């Protein structure tokens, strides 16, 4: 692919331009398996048209090339979509959607560093991915809430059963959501903020 000449770069639409007073940006990560609704959630609450950013990943190929004896490497580009919410004149919140599968964890270094917290989007038809993601977030000390996206035909479990299945501590919020609805997605973010607030209060008290 040719690089875009600088004249060809199309910047933000006029309504997407941030005022120059904005001085601080914070981020929240939406993580979950394929097709769980990450892009939908980001899109439903974002004030800008959701954007896509890319990172290249070099993977060691499977096995060794017969002709050269050199291990094959392949480069894949992984896309992350993100959106933005202006909080006030000085503060903006960015939301990044990222796939939860282990082979994408290389993206996580820059992503979770400094993030306020995360939303783990869960499809009850496929709990396995969530398992790994939750373990990994706990390891990294990233606070998170779990949002259950309700798909037609997905088994509906009582919250406490899910909590047990996902091995979640009592204080980690589990909320239902419909990522297609702005209010519902907003409520998920609110649940995360309330949780972060409770953690902050606890930290200050100790």
């Amino acid at each position, binding site marked *: 692919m040719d690089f875009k000449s600088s004249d060809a770069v199309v910047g933000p639409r006029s309504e997407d331009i941030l005022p120059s007073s904005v001085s601080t940006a914070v981020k929240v990560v939406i993580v979950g398996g394929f097709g769980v609704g990450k892009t939908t959630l980001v899109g439903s609450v974002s004030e800008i048209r959701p954007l896509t950013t890319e990172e290249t990943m070099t993977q060691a190929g499977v096995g060794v090339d017969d002709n050269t004896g050199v291990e094959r490497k392949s480069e894949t580009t*992984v896309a992350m979509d993100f959106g933005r919410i202006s909080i006030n004149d000085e503060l903006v919140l960015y939301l990044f959607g990222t796939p939860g599968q282990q082979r994408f964890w290389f993206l996580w270094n820059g992503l979770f560093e400094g993030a306020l917290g995360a939303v783990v989007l869960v499809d009850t038809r496929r709990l396995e991915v969530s398992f790994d993601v939750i373990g990994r977030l706990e390891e990294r000390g990233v606070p998170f809430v779990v949002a259950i996206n309700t798909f037609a035909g997905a088994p509906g479990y009582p919250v406490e059963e899910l909590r047990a299945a996902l091995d979640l501590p009592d204080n980690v919020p589990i909320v239902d959501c419909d990522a297609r609805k702005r209010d519902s997605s907003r409520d998920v973010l609110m649940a995360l903020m309330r949780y972060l607030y409770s953690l902050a209060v606890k930290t200050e008290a100790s």
Partner: protein
Amino acid sequence: MSEGDHEPGVDENEYDPGRMYVVTGGRTGTGKAALDLVTLIVATSEPQPTIQPEAAGILRLCESPLSVAEISAYTDLPISLVMVILADLLKDEHVEARAPVPKALLPERALIEAVMHGLQKL
């Protein structure tokens, strides 16, 4: 491939590695400049004619504050490349970086309260 087997996150449209090398001079790091995906970048000068086209494009985009992630999205350049270019622009003081809240200050109640207020208005 069956439905659900797809990998929509993977895109074949890669930035040409040759060009990548030209722009970065083979460097991959960003040196001392600690850039984050949400570091806000603002241009402090107009692009000079001698500047690389990628850098010129970024300077033009950043007339108002824009995050590193947005710069990457609008220019179609990989994040790591954008960060290398920005590190140079910062060093030469063509742009100013408004860094995200340092991790040491998180979680901070006032900040979280502000976010809650903002979300309530949505």
